[in-house]
């Protein structure tokens, strides 16, 4: 029978079998697996069988449920997976006696999580493979290569199209600007586009850009198809796949 083992660091705290009823996990004492930590929500997650497969479901917890370090709302579990809830983890035994196919990095890199650690290349490769597999298993679509592009619709520039490859793209007359504006009265640095982890943000320089007809109040995230007007030039932000 499948079973779940609640672990804290290397010690097993409790083990429960997964039967026909969902296993309830959380901080309040009426759960099947009680995780006594403030980072854990009262009703944090559930594990149950669904058409023969073991599934973990986050119950809208504050700090999230992680399967092998990827945050999930719902994911199919495999033998040897680890569910992370706060600083505790739950080892998944889907067969009862089968060997663990996946060596969790935390088992080899046991140590406090506050200590900075590096995933060495092999472990990282495994994790990225896991991430790709997770893309199929959960609602996260596997990432296709996206090419953020600025297309010049009108105005004088040194090129008609620019692919954004740098952390910071400057728009202006400056010889060093990525998107060079032509014309006597153009500012050296009219505006700038900063690549952040979650997307591209346009901010003002000597001019305040207009995005989709509205002057931006501060750095503004660009979405696919947005229209940008700055210093007499009209630009179109397009994400190509």
């Amino acid at each position, binding site marked *: 029978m499948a079973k779940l083992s609640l672990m804290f660091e290397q010690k097993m705290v409790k083990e429960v079998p997964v039967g026909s009823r969902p296993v309830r996990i959380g901080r309040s004492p009426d759960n099947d697996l009680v995780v006594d930590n403030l980072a854990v929500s009262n009703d944090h997650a559930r594990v149950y069988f669904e058409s023969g497969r073991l599934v973990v479901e986050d119950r809208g917890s504050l700090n999230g449920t992680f399967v092998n370090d990827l*945050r999930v709302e719902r994911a199919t579990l495999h033998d040897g997976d680890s569910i992370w809830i706060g600083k505790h983890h739950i080892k998944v035994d889907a067969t009862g006696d089968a060997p663990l196919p996946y060596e969790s990095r935390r088992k080899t890199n046991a140590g406090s999580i506050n200590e900075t650690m*590096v995933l060495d290349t092999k472990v990282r490769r495994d994790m990225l493979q896991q991430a790709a597999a997770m893309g199929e298993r959960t609602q996260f679509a596997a990432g296709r290569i996206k090419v953020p592009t600025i297309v010049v619709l009108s105005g004088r520039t040194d090129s008609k199209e620019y692919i954004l490859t740098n952390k910071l793209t400057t728009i202006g007359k400056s010889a060093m600007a990525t998107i060079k504006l032509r014309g006597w009265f153009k500012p*050296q640095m009219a505006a700038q586009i900063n690549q952040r982890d979650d997307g591209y943000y346009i901010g003002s320089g000597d001019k305040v850009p207009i995005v989709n007809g509205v002057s931006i109040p501060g750095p503004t995230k660009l979405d696919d198809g947005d229209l940008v007007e700055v210093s007499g030039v009209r630009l179109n932000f397009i994400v190509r796949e």
Partner: protein
Amino acid sequence: MQILTGGATHVGMVRTNNEDCYRIVAPLNLYVLADGMGGEAHGEVASALAVETVVKHCIEGQENPSAPLLGEPKPGLNPKSQRLLSAIHLANQNVFQSAEEHAEQEGMGATLTAAWIDGMHLSVGHVGDSRLYLLRTGQLQQLTSDHSLVAEQVRRGILTASEAEQSNLQSVLLRALGTQPEVEVDIEQVPLFPGDVLLLCSDGLTRMVTEPEIAGTLQAEPDPQRAAEKLVEHANEGGGIDNVSVIVVSLKPEPKGWFSWLRRGAQKSAGGNGSAGGQ
């Protein structure tokens, strides 16, 4: 243009040793900051060795531009960026070798962020989760990408930026110096403008102080040294869970107008040393 700098480091309120290391090489306009890791005192060894290696290699390159470069030259990079890339690869090699040769140093490593200003060009070299920010027209813009698991999850759309800030996996790095024989190094080339302010910092700052607070401090305090000290104070007020180090570099525009032009002319004719007014 006049370049003013300031730097500060502090062990923080929780830890007992400071594994951060930074160097301001004023004559070269080169700034290097590293955050070490590894048990006992070996994080300190790693960050110091990494910083020393980068600084030495860049000074050698400055004195002799044809000094050998480590690794394949990357197309599209100017000589300073090329040198910086080579220096960081060399730092990786040196830290890795030291860890191989000394059993007690096993597992040590470091993050490293370096900025090199050449006229109005900035070269940035980076591995790990220390950061370089550019404050320009009141906006704080991050010029480095963290090589951390949570940042990668944000880039893949798995976490939102605010979820990443809450994550308990923030300390997991995907890249660092000295943990592998080879490492991928990020290099960026950015044009600079008068009035720009650069900030290099270890994660001890960015985990304790929000970006609007950082931007506000840099704007409120025009003196780079005092700004650096203020940022460290803010990190410690916020809890100081980690070592914190910052370098602030401020590009002051030359004063304009008739008066300063006359004054400069007077200084030139009065002082025997033409550069006396530059410092």
